[in-house]
């Protein structure tokens, strides 16, 4: 797969305020990328820069190996062949659904245009709304029209700015899945902006995690979850706690991280000088007498239950160790200890993740 979109050292500034900088991202053809981060991290600005709405302060953007933006020149959005779905859809209120979808198709012949519109209406399951106006439709329908409109001209890349944020939760998950299917079926390369990791996981192949205008981590959902490269990644993605640790050199020449719970070997390529240990809630279990002895490198930690929250399939609990370190744990939902109950948990230290800081 060839590189389809490439951001090289991209920076954007408004006046003297830096919005994003040092962004390097490559997206292969047919992949769905995601710009994930808390609000104000610059992800929307970055998306608009890819679309051509914002100027670059540094760096270059390549789309299909063609330079579309550099500091001096930028191909305007209307000539860039990007499709964009806006947060509030920005449907044209004075045009019908079909006219909205056909808006970017004026280069086609009338019959071709109608065929393409019909095709997209079928694809998005909106055929019966063809002659209606946007304000007559539900939020979910409007969202799909916005998507169909962006896809219609077969853009080189599809950009979606918080496409699900105006929808209710149930609809959101359903649509996220549908839209991924749709984009894949159209063999479209796409970038999605969101602050919601579930959305990112459900839709994207690769995720760029941004914080305060900087790219924190770029990888698959799995990589982000299991190999966070920073405290920010670790804390932003998924749940868990970071336990402070110190790096020690072992006689074997390998380094390990030492924490109050136990010691974990570091991978050979781990170069940071400071590190913490990330413990996900599912890595804790209530200790039973038989497993404590058998599993190697398992820590047995006495804890007190501070808080529990019923989540249906499981129970999310906040625990406190004797040293006052808090831990998050995910226990089966029939878990029945009361608050302030003391008990022991076992933690499989090999499954935990050391995180550089």
């Amino acid at each position: 797969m060839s590189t389809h979109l490439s951001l090289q050292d991209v920076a954007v500034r408004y006046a003297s305020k830096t919005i994003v900088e040092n962004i390097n991202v490559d997206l292969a053809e047919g992949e769905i990328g995601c710009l994930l981060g808390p609000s104000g991290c610059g992800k929307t600005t970055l998306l608009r820069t890819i679309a051509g709405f914002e100027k670059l302060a540094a760096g270059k953007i390549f789309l299909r190996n063609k330079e579309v933006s550099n500091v001096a020149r930028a191909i305007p959005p209307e000539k860039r062949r990007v499709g964009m779905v806006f947060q509030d859809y920005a449907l044209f209120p004075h045009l019908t659904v079909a006219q909205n979808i056909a808006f970017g198709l004026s280069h086609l012949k009338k019959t071709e245009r109608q065929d393409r519109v019909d095709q997209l209406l079928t694809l998005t399951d909106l055929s019966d709304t063809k002659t209606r106006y946007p304000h007559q439709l539900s939020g979910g329908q409007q969202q799909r029209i916005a998507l169909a409109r962006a896809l219609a001209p077969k853009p080189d890349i599809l950009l979606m700015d918080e496409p699900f944020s105006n929808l209710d939760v149930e609809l959101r998950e359903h649509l996220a899945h549908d839209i991924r299917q749709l984009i894949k079926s159209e063999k479209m390369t796409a970038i999605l902006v969101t602050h919601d990791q579930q959305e990112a996981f459900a839709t994207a192949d690769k995720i760029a995690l941004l914080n305060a205008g900087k790219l924190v981590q770029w990888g698959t959902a799995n990589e982000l979850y299991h190999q966070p490269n920073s405290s920010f990644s670790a804390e932003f993605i998924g749940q868990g706690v970071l336990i402070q640790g110190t790096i020690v050199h072992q006689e074997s020449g390998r380094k390990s991280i030492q924490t109050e719970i136990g010691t974990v070997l570091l991978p050979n390529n781990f170069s940071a000088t400071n590190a913490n240990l990330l413990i996900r809630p599912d890595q804790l279990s209530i200790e039973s007498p038989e497993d404590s002895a058998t599993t190697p490198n398992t820590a047995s930690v006495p804890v007190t239950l501070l808080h529990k929250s019923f989540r249906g399939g499981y129970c999310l609990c906040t625990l406190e160790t004797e040293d006052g370190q808090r831990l998050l744990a995910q226990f089966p939902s029939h878990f029945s200890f009361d608050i302030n109950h003391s008990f022991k948990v076992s933690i499989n230290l090999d499954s935990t993740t050391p995180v550089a800081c």
Partner: protein
Amino acid sequence: MASSNSDLTQPLSPTTTLSSARLRPRITRSHLFVLFLLTTTSILALPVLTIASFIFEPASDVWHHLASTVLSDYVINSLLLLIGVAVGTLTMGITSAWLTAMYQFPGRRIVEWALLLPLAMPAYIIAYTYTGLLDFAGPLQTALREGFNWQYGDYWFPEVRSLIGAICMLSFVLYPYVYLLARASFLEQSVVTMDAARSLGAGPWKRFFRVALPMARPAIVAGTSLALMETLADYGTVQYFGISTFTTGIFRTWFGLGDQGAAAQLAAMLLGFVLLLILVERYSRRQAQYHQQSTGDSSHQRQPLSKLSGVIASILCTTPIILGFLIPFGLLTQWAMGETMDASFFSLVWNSLSLAFSAALLALTLAIILGYGQRLMPTRAVKTGVRVATLGYAVPGTVIAVGIVIPLAWIDNRIDQWATDMFDHSTGLIFSGSLFILLFAYLVRFLAVALGSVESGLQTIKPSMDDSARSLGFSPFQVLRKIHLPIIRPSLFTAVLLVFVDVLKELPATLILRPFNFNTLAVRAYELASDEQLASAAPAAITIVLTGLIPVILLSRSINRPNAGSSS
């Protein structure tokens, strides 16, 4: 988080307010309100209906005479005039509105408000000045003849006093209506929607024609219909230029042929024109809606233009100002030199100002009541009532005046009769010949201006906002006071100033309805000008223009305010 979704997951419907009102226990209050609205609109429609009632007089010989001789001229000329003025005002108004709203070019800040100056120029005055300048006997052609030793017929020169000339004159002074409303609409348009069009490959022209223009349509239609209704009502210009239109035809039939019935039938045809215009527009709009759906990021940045484009933009925006204001104003000033102003001049100014101001405030109050009433009670009866009440804008002032004199004098005489019978005391005429009747006439004539502005302001407020305020325990009146009025303040301001300027220029109704010894600047200017004493008319005309400038400048300041912060 979930609450913000509510307005998107259910279709936005203007009837939500109504249906929720119906469910309230105090059902009679809304009925009373509808009754009040209908009464108000009926009173305002009285003059137009009085005129229209003459239609039922049997068609006289005069009518047959008109139909066989001049009627087709009236229809064709009026239509051509309407089409021409529509094209003229749309071209000048929209071009300048688009350029000043979207681009940064040399002199933008000045032309932005100067483009409104022609509003202060009465059409008949500009017609007199241009004729003075460009006529065969005028200085320009005389200079050409003397310079080249030409005689009559040796050369071609555009004839000012022609249909084209009238179209130009009216367009020069009426385009600001389109400019004003279109510009506001362009500025309010969501930046995101334009971005969406760009991402779909739309260049600047397509964005303008396919997105910005259609989305500004309600505003542009409102502005153009004001211009066209003024055109239909214009008498001074077409009469001076010798063009037979409905208006001159009505005068001629009424006063020359002495046939009120046939004149009223002509006036009714004129109203038919207006209704047709309104219906065509309504139909073509059908279900399309123009609420901005997005709240989006509204930061509005003007695109700088290249040097050449900047110069072209400057020229395009300066031309209407030169044509509609600078040239006629310069000529008037030249004429006014050497004219003396007597002491009565001050009272003219005062009369004009106080009348215009009271009328403007009254019109605003009524426009708010009717505009908001329509929003609360969007029933067919209320809507029709409001439309009929605003028809007066398209009817020539003289016709309106007659439509007022007849019913009000009748009422006066009834009251007097009653008082004499009951108390043996004659009340005389209470309304007739009072300033009250004059203010009433202004309302009938210019309510459409104020209402148009208020309505377009209210249109930008989503119905869901009414609903949310009502759900927070606000009464409809409180919603109006706390939500709508503060939000649409610029529109209210525009309404007041437009009516102010219009009343200042108003002539025929003032002429007929004013009390004894009461003159205005427009009356003075017109009496002298129509007596062909242009120089003597110049000081009053200039004062109208200068007085009109004050609100026009205020108006322009108010239109700049919303984006002043973000543009710098």
